[in-house]
């Protein structure tokens, strides 16, 4: 008897929960929720809030352009996700205060940011992406930080027919799947270490060997394999190539073996905390090659403040740097978009507002906002397909660097990668030569 009653109760509960959830989610004003677009025939339309105004062309335009970002505020990407949110907020502030909004076919429309915490978790990231679009009415999206989360959101972006700016992902395979709404911003991961290897072979023809130790995660595997291919292309020998798992608490076994292969260059292809661990342990173990690089974490400001001496002379790849120089003549060219500031000036404003200096995550979130603005203005519309078509034509420069996508895949091809080196607390750009802000200390072990 009990089981049958329980079954009845189960039914009641599921209905109750259904209604409770509905009640909890009802937006004041009862926003109309668009059905997911069906495939052929129907012209995809962006979700348009209830009150709209018309322009001369008679196209319905929203009162405001809502941009959503599932920011990783907790979990493994927390520090990095926060910068995306701050950079994007700064973009919205700039576009609203300085320009009165995004200029869509002559009408200035202000920008509003909606966000949530994706917990660096797949289910939450998907749910949040959908919620920001369907419930909060986001017209455009920034994807979650990291290649894995961006990739899992890519089919949803296609299905919801919303532009997804991949401001925090660079794994090449995202753009090999035929998605049509995910727009690349970063230089692809496979090219992260190219300028460092170019620099080393040019500066020191005697440098023949490189050891690569990498974290087994999609972004770092792509970076490591790109570095391996580049080294071989340059005629260097890859004498050690092995990976470590994400849950490693001690990297000394792999570092000891990498050192044992007696390389001229050691590349630790790491994410963040693991890179810092590797740098510390190499110092402790006295492993000191001609050059050592620690992946994208080495470009963060914390790298020096937290590691101090262990950071001296370390190299790292960076998408963008506050110290990066910009020729002021570029400000007045046609391709320049956004505030006419150098990265240093941008970084100063950012630090004043958020209390910490941005690295490339914060800088390029702002840059991605500018690129989105440029595409909307070029399209003269907030229609997703029109904006995507505009992206395919876009070729611009901002304080964040170049932006141009491959029209076939939407992967980024216009942005170039920097290599930095820490010298007595200063992050010095040492490659490529045209962007360098100082001389490299090489060999770094002298």
């Amino acid at each position, binding site marked *: 008897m009990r089981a049958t009653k329980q079954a*009845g109760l189960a039914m009641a509960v599921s209905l109750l929960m259904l209604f409770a959830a509905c009640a909890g989610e009802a937006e004041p004003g009862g926003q109309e*929720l668009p059905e997911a677009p069906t495939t052929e025939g129907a012209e995809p339309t962006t979700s348009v809030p209830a009150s709209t105004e018309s322009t001369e062309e008679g196209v319905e335009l929203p009162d405001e352009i809502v941009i959503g970002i599932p920011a990783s505020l907790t979990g493994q990407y927390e520090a990095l996700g926060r910068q995306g949110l701050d950079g994007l907020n700064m973009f919205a502030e700039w576009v609203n205060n300085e320009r009165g909004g995004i200029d869509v076919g002559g009408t200035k429309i202000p920008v509003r940011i909606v966000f949530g915490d994706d917990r660096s978790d797949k289910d939450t990231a998907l749910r949040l992406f959908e919620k920001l679009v369907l419930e909060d009415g986001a017209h455009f999206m920034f994807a979650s930080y990291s290649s894995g989360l961006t990739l899992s959101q890519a*089919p*949803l972006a296609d299905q919801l027919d919303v532009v997804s700016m991949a401001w925090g992902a660079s794994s090449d395979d995202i753009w090999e799947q035929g998605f049509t709404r995910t727009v690349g911003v970063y230089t692809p991961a496979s090219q992260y270490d190219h300028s460092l290897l170019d620099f080393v072979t040019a500066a020191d023809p005697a440098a023949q060997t490189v050891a690569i130790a990498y974290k087994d995660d999609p972004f770092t595997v792509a970076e490591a394999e790109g570095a391996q291919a580049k080294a071989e292309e340059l005629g260097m020998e890859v004498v050690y190539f092995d990976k470590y798992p994400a849950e490693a608490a001690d990297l000394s076994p792999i570092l000891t073996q990498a050192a044992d292969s007696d390389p001229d260059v050691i590349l630790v292809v790491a994410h963040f905390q693991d890179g810092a661990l590797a740098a510390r342990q190499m110092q402790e173990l006295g492993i000191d090659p001609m050059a050592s690089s620690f992946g994208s974490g080495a470009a963060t400001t914390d790298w020096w403040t937290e590691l101090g001496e262990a950071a001296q002379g370390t190299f790292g790849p960076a998408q963008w740097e506050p110290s990066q120089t910009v020729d002021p003549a570029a400000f007045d060219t046609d391709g320049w978009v956004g505030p006419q500031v150098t990265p240093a000036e941008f970084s100063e404003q950012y630090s004043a507002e958020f209390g910490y200096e941005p690295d490339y995550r914060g800088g390029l979130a702002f840059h991605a906002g500018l690129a989105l603005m440029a595409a909307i203005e070029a399209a003269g519309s907030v229609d997703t397909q029109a904006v995507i078509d505009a992206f395919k034509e876009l070729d611009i420069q901002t304080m964040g660097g170049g932006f141009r996508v491959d029209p076939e895949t939407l992967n980024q091809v216009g942005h170039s990668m920097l290599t930095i080196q820490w010298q007595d607390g200063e992050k010095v750009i040492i490659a490529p030569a045209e962007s360098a802000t100082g001389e490299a200390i090489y060999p770094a072990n002298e």
Partner: protein
Amino acid sequence: MKTAPPEVILERRDPIRLLNMSLVVFAVVAAGVLALQPGLPGASLVFWFNLMKAIVLAMSLNLITGYTGYVDFGHVVFYGLGTYVAGIAIGMLGLAVPVPLWVFVGPLLVALIAVLVGMPALRLRGAYFAIAMLSFNAATRLVVLNLPRDFAGGAFGIPTPEIYDPRTAYYGMVGLLVAIILVTVWLGGSRFGVGLKAIRDDEGAAGVMGIRTTQYKLAAFGASAYFAAAAGSVDYWFVAFTSNELVFNNVVTVEMVAGVFLGGAGTVVGPVFGAGILYLVRDFLWVRFPFLYLPMFGAVIAVVVLFMPRGIVGFVEDHVPALRAKIK
């Protein structure tokens, strides 16, 4: 929960019972369809899909943990393997099996793995079983990660955008939820279910009474793994992607365990309540307090554990006499 009284067994073909079952099926299907009608507030595909997934996963854990008392700290491994069984067959090997069929057939392989693992593992008791399964999950994740990349995708995982069809996959999850509710209801009144509960109360005594404890436990474990894996396969269908770092996440196990015990282990409604409420509370807090929802979520769980020792079902039985009469 005490062992179900014997008269339950006699009621197996009770017409009221059949009616109740069909009502459940009807309610779940109706709720599933209603939830997706455009125009209704909260018509979020991912929200409802994940809610049902959380309930199915908690109910799958309940099959082994609630009925036999074996707490599986690594249950997410079957969910993860479920996504991979679908991903490898469809995305990598390109098997010519219809996706909607394979997401329910493929998980049988995972059930087989569970039975093989269960043979030694289910000989362990209590926390040792839990920790063995925790380790099994960790080891499996790493083994899958280190399989050849053109077979299991390595760190990149397996994206298969061409099968992306979340609307149909959504109904797959509705079907799975109906199936596991029916199995659990059947279990509550069957000889098999009574045998499992006897194992939970005293495994030695159950053996003496002539219950074939090993076979019973393995069957429950296999069924439990099957449903977790099927949830994984359907989830793979829903997102068209699986990746190592995303699907063997211990947090998912902990949420399953928390859901089962918050609701009431070994009952039909318990895991539905527990997992559902946990999901809604998390969703509610997380939307409104993005920076502090985690401590608040933790506090909610702590309060429930401290003040509702037997889960929500037990609390209702103890404190609402009118309902108690109905439940008993």
